[in-house]
């Protein structure tokens, strides 16, 4: 791995000629996208887009029927929660929403591979991972509504708060994993590991590089889980790197794996393996989940400006949910009753979400000044006292 030249497929002379051009020649992926079909790269796959089970020499899963049903249920529910959240934004109940549609398999596969004692460091799109960590699905909505910065207890769920500065959390995960080492919590089955989520755009950030350096040097039990959803807002992954992301791991001295990010079984298998390696003292792994963001970057974005309908269409053919559904159907694991019951669950859960979000009261103004410091906080105390007095001066004036 990592032994092939990064510029393979591009004439070396051209790259070296220094000839001026505003844009590099299209990559094979770009060319294919222009023609409306995107070739699948080499990756670990256990379930084809048609829902056929295939084997891989290095990765396998051994699920009971119930567990397979559970994975399907997770996929459906997090998609429905996501669609409902987008709708809530459109209706004015959320300021913004970052949709995970298309990335459900990457998140549920890796999220279900985590053990209770593992710690997850998400970015801002990991609603599916939070679901797997048992965080109430309404918890991130305070952030997107503007009520708070994320209202769940990271220690209770072993899931850190969302991070909006791209890539910053990769270092937190590595530091945390260094702490796991110092605590001696590696080397056994009940050892611990950290996983950190980030995007293909984030892979360009200095923090991510530094995180990989620290992880390699300190042999930290951490899994870097990059969801390559092909875009950083409008910029295609070719604008971030000319090297397949997973191959970068070789430069840091640990393994990198590319997995079909729309295949929940493969994502589970690859993440479980990497986490097990980490918890047994084998150090970090970089996983690139090759996937696609079906919707807009966030609800403020207009993806029609930068990608073609045919590209989106071709990714629709690889939908993570429909392939799981056809697999379950063909294998006789899911029948109409089962699928209906999952839909009913999703209805119930999204109904609860809707009710919660619409009913969310504005935060108490005193929260402005809370928890700035853990210890004494004289400036904030003085400002808070002033503010409370100021607020109370309006009492009885009536609304205008």
């Amino acid at each position, binding site marked *: 791995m990592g032994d092939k030249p990064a510029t393979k497929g591009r004439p070396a002379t051209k790259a070296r000629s220094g000839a001026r051009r505003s844009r590099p020649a299209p990559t094979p992926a770009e060319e294919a996208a222009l023609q409306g079909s995107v070739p699948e790269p080499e990756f670990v796959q256990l379930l084809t887009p048609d829902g056929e089970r295939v084997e891989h020499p290095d990765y396998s899963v051994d699920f009971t029927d119930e567990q397979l049903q559970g994975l399907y249920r997770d996929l459906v529910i997090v998609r429905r929660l996501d669609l409902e959240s987008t709708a809530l934004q459109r209706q004015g109940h959320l300021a913004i929403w970052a949709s995970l549609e298309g990335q459900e398999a990457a998140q549920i596969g890796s999220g279900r591979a985590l053990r209770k004692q593992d710690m997850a460091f998400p970015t801002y799109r990991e609603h599916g991972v939070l679901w797997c960590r048992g965080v109430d699905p309404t918890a991130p909505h305070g952030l997107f509504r503007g009520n*708070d*910065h*994320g*209202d769940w*207890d*990271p*220690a209770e769920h072993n899931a*850190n*708060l969302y*991070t909006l*500065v791209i890539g*910053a959390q*990769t*270092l*937190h*995960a*590595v*530091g*945390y*994993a*260094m*702490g*796991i080492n*110092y*605590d001696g919590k590696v080397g056994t089955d009940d050892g611990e590991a*950290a996983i950190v989520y980030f995007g293909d755009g984030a892979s360009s950030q*200095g*923090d991510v590089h*530094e*995180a990989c*350096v*620290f992880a390699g*040097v300190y042999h930290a039990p951490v899994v870097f889980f990059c969801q390559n959803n092909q875009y950083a807002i409008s910029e295609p992954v070719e604008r971030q790197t000319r090297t397949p992301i997973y191959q970068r791991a070789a430069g840091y001295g640990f393994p990198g794996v590319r997995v079909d990010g729309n295949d929940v079984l493969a994502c589970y298998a690859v993440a479980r393996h990497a986490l097990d390696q980490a918890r047994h003292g084998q150090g970090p792994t970089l996983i690139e989940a090759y996937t696609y963001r079906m919707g807009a970057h966030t609800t403020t974005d207009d993806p029609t400006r930068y990608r073609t309908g045919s590209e989106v269409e071709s990714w629709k053919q690889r939908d993570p949910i429909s392939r799981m559904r056809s697999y379950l159907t063909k294998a006789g694991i899911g029948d109409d009753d089962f699928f209906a019951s999952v839909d009913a669950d999703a209805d119930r859960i999204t109904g609860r979400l809707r009710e919660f979000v619409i009913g969310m009261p504005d935060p108490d103004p005193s*929260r402005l000044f*809370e*928890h*700035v*410091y*853990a*210890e*004494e*906080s*004289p*400036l*904030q105390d003085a400002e808070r006292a002033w503010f409370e007095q100021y607020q109370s001066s309006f009492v009885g004036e009536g609304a205008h």
Partner: protein
Amino acid sequence: MAKQQGPLTGTQTLTIGKALNLGLRRALEDDPKVLLMGEDVGRLGGVFRITDGLQKDFGEDRVLDSPLAEAGIVGTAIGLAMRGYRPVCEMQFDGFSYPAFDQVTNQLAKMHYRSRGRITLPVVIRIPFGGGIGSVEHHSESPETYYMHTAGLKVVTPSSAVDAYFMIQQAIRSNDPVIFLEPKARYYEKGEVDLDASLASAEPLHRSRVVRAGSDATVVGYGPTMRVLRDSADAAAEDGRLLELIDLRTLSPLDLDPVYESVKRTGRLIVVHEAPTNAGPAAEIAARVQNECFYSLEAPVQRVTGFDTPYPASKLEEHFLPDLDRVLDAVDRTFSY
């Protein structure tokens, strides 16, 4: 730094650098969760030798020679703190702390607030700061205003050996992130430290202190400028002017009560720092003093600071840094009203 390996006891005359070293040593002894991390802090003992001998005695897992990556040092310290450790990060020089700025201001400073108190990050960032060492560019910066401006951080700076010894231990015990600014030009200045005194008996971390009483004008400084303040007070005394000197010690939270009390008696205030004038600490202090002491002021608050230029080449730094003449000139100005 001299390898003075005597017992950690009794009253000793120590340089500020050695006092910091002994303070770190004591913190490492007192709490197994304390870790030191930074570039060259291990075998070399840091470029200023502040961590001299600590890796040898506490091991590579307690005193970490980090990769050369400032954001990495602070970012991983955040993760370690989430895991229950108390990391003490060294930034090799002030100008090289800027690559870590996002991790400090966006991450470290805000995590307690964002998590509504669920995450505390007891991280100390040690930064040798200020000029006057004749070094090349990026080695003489005064970044204090950036950090003072960021809620969630404590910003402190000792100016004596005794403060260096205790304040570093207090900073490490604090459950809030602390930017610990070390006046590098004064690492070799000596003072008496009672190593047996308890931390509880030491001046609290968040207090400023009157270091010399005087009745005619109040002069406020911190860290690197305290020496010039003392020299100025000596010189002014020869002219019959008694200056009251206040060492802020803490820039966030600013502890201005002693300043208000003093100004109410003297009616005059001069604030001295190396950082540039524009929006510098003196601006904040002047505004607050003007609010609290308006009817006591006999003259506008005077500022003696670095200029609003990048830190100059070292052959020019004597003109940039507040010196005796500029402070005395400001004293004269305040008496001219």
